[in-house]
């Protein structure tokens, strides 16, 4: 069993929470997510050109890079997180260029050394897997793929093949932090994806409230919340951990009570 498979083997759906590395007091923010009851942590790697993200996460990237956050800083945040939390799965999420800049093998090894369990790379689809996938798998890191409402049945096998840890279903054809998809559409698509793979399916994009998270948790293996948490960091700065703990606890309660 890996840390990721353990997280999805719990008797309740998994709450997956996202914040951006280097935005606010990241170590304290991460601890607050764990204390609030997050089952999986996604740590965003800041990038100058986050073209799949809405305003909340764009701003988080700008704040982080504005403070001079480097790849070394992101890896150090991960390493220290792993020292404090031996069992909580940690996933790096971001864009290809910072991941391949020094070569995919360098990145995979450095992430593995930092105790990272999985990587979500927004702009490496299955067709370009060679750019990152083999290096991650060799280093024992799960490449976590994304499926979307536009992923038709014809390409679904190619998407799930080679995805490890879990599959991230992007509920909305759009960017992060905007509108939520209809629960009927989410349910139908999750069922379709689960027909094509054994790995757990977590649903994200547009999930902001405990009510939404609870509704999705009834039909999926996990729920991803990002922008709503990132907005708390933007609003409360160094006082964010208390707010993050509060919202995470409410989300976790809704997700755990769903089934």
């Amino acid at each position, binding site marked *: 069993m890996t840390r990721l498979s353990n997280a999805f083997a719990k008797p309740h759906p998994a709450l997956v929470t996202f914040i951006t590395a280097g935005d606010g007091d990241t170590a304290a923010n991460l601890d607050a997510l764990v204390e609030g009851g997050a089952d999986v942590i996604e740590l965003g790697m800041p990038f100058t050109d986050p073209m799949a993200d809405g305003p909340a996460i764009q701003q988080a990237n700008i704040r982080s890079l504005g403070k001079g956050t480097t*790849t070394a800083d992101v890896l150090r945040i991960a390493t220290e997180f792993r020292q404090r939390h031996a069992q909580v799965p940690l996933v790096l999420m971001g864009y290809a260029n*910072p991941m391949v*800049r020094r070569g995919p093998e360098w990145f995979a090894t450095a992430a593995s050394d930092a105790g990272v369990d999985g990587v979500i790379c927004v702009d490496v689809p299955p*067709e370009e897997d060679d750019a990152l996938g083999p290096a991650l798998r060799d280093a024992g890191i799960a490449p976590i793929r994304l499926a979307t409402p536009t*992923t038709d049945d014809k390409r679904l096998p190619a998407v799930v093949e080679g995805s490890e840890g879990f599959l991230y279903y992007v509920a909305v*054809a759009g960017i992060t932090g905007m509108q939520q998809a209809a629960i009927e559409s989410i349910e139908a698509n999750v069922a379709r994806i689960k027909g094509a793979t054994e790995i757990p399916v977590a649903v994200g994009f547009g999930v902001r409230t405990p009510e939404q998270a609870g509704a999705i948790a009834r039909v999926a293996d996990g729920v991803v919340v990002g922008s709503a948490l990132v907005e708390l960091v933007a609003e409360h700065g160094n006082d964010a951990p208390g707010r993050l703990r509060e919202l995470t606890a409410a989300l976790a309660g809704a997700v755990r009570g769903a089934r």
Partner: protein
Amino acid sequence: MNHGKSDPASPPANSYRQMPDSRGHFGDYGGRYVAETLMPLVLELEREYRKAQADPAFQREFDDLLEHYVGRPSPLYHAERLSEALGGAQVWFKRDELNHTGAHKINNCIGQILLAIRMGKTRIIAETGAGQHGVATATVCARFGLPCVIYMGAEDVQRQSPNVFRMKLLGAEVVPVTSGRGTLKDAMNEGLRDWVANVHDTFYIIGTAAGPHPYPELVRDFQSVIGKEARAQMQDRIGRLPDLLVAAIGGGSNALGLFHPFLDDPDVKMLGVEAAGHGLDGDEHAASLLGGFPGVLHGNKTYLLQDEDGQITEGHSISAGLDYPGIGPEHAWLKDTGRVEYTAITDEEALEAFQLLCRTEGIIPALEPSHAIAAVAKRAKDMPKDSVILANLCGRGDKDIFTVAERLGVEI
């Protein structure tokens, strides 16, 4: 006119004109580095483009619009007074600045909007820097009656107000982009964000030979009309091919359009001219090939201006059309193979060349081809008088007179 790879003659086995491969790669470069939401759409675009390439009706409509709406073929012009002033090679220009809308951009926009219509898309989006691609896109949208949204960096909206007004006259909605640093690359990010949220009805007309496959290939093919005409016109006028082709490079579409039909002519040398801005020594340039490193941005792998962590840095050039931190992936491949030579020209050198062409030939060039003219001036001197340089005059300079006046200290 034939289209794509079969013209002017079928490429031989080890041709430079066979790229990209079936996965959209030019050697190590190119590809389809996009979010999953867009993947089905770029695959559909490729299928539709293959059908269009094989459809004589598509070719006929494209050719007809280029002839009667754009004004092609553009003239091939022997710049005798410039040649004399330089004292070396004979300089010829492909006059793509005489096209409708004043630049080569329209060739590509015509091709892409015909594809959009074939695909049943009812809404067009595009990004623009200085506004040339925005104006060309707004033009074809007006011509075909499709709604059009143009993303443009907020600062460029201020600086390029005549082009913003042109786009609005043509019925386009111009959206100032304030995300990131509000530059061309941020406008492209915003275009991609719009596209990903509106894939069902929206076609993204990318302005240069970059982005996810098949964009670099189809933009090149639509722009190759420049090189195909030039090849035939050269044969017709002087009975041989030129010794050297020269073109400016931002994303690289006008250069590929000129170069591509000549790639398998071993005696024709080629020179791509990047923007050196204030000089390649510092950070203020836009020379992705000469001053950047390979990486992944906006759907393709190519040379990028970036720091050691892979964060994208801003380009600088006096010419807004060259001011982009990336370059089309086919240029990255042509650089590595050595088939095309690349050089860079500073703001100052481009300004001098701009004035030189005004005075010797009575042509006010855009600042983009002024970079090519500056490179021509450097090379021509050392070439024999019976040698021939062909440069692409890819845009006219009306849009740049305010920038030039400011740099020359003139108030207008």
